């Protein structure tokens, strides 16, 4: 069983991500949640998840700043974005900062399956 940290300021979206993980064949993992990038950063360090799925646009600290802070601290936890913005510019920024992928909303279970294959 893996531990997955889901960061999104929307409780609705965190629940949809959990549901989609289940539909993509990843039921039964230990899921922890964060409502912004600051809490995500704290939990990433304190709880040592195996994977972080994070929104980009969040209050307090956004997802890209959270990822930058994590990597600057030497933390290499696999990190993927699940966000409403999927432009080439943002995909390039995500990759440059060390994200493994960027899943644009709306998404399907198949998209999750494709990106998470071999990670969990």
């Amino acid at each position, binding site marked *: 069983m893996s531990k997955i940290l889901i960061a999104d300021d*929307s409780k*609705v979206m965190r629940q949809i991500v959990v549901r989609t993980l289940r539909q993509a064949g990843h039921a039964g993992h230990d899921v922890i949640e964060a409502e912004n990038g600051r809490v995500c950063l704290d939990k990433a360090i304190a709880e040592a998840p195996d994977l972080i799925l994070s929104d980009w646009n969040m209050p307090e600290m956004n997802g890209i700043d959270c990822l930058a802070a994590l990597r600057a601290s030497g933390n290499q936890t696999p990190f993927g974005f699940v966000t409403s913005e999927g432009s080439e510019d943002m995909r390039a920024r995500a990759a440059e900062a060390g994200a493994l992928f960027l899943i644009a*909303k*709306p*998404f399907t279970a198949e998209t999750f399956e494709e990106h998470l294959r071999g990670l969990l």
Partner: protein
Amino acid sequence: MTLSPATGPALADVQAITEQVWSSFLGDEEPLLQRFTEPSESGSVAFPAEQVWSAAVSVHGDWTGSITVELSGAVAQSLTRLMLALADEPLEDADIADAVGELVNMIGGNVKSLMPGPSALTLPVVAAGRAAHATDLAEVARLDAVWNGEPVRVSVHAPRS
């Protein structure tokens, strides 16, 4: 000085994005159907619902504009139940605001991706009631639709340049 017309996404793109978001999270069982209205229609004639929720996000950058969603109270409650996979439990206003905000966030994020960048997307602002728009903004696209017989409106506004 003559102002240039405001620019923004084509209505067909707004419709395609909205339908994609809608069917992904709310299913295809009850489709979102386009509703034809006259541009001059306003008030309760243009949006026949007693209770309304509205939400907006703005894009700032190489393209600047705002994306607004307006829903009848019945649609807002139904979409919240579907998104949270809830049956008959009573809903908190906070849950409805969260669901409606996430809806406009997804539609707005996809509109942003279509427009020239770089640009930044704001967090959603949600209100119980119709949306109001600044007077320096012009409507560049408006999708009027019905879902389960209830009105849904997605509009895009941009400054006159």
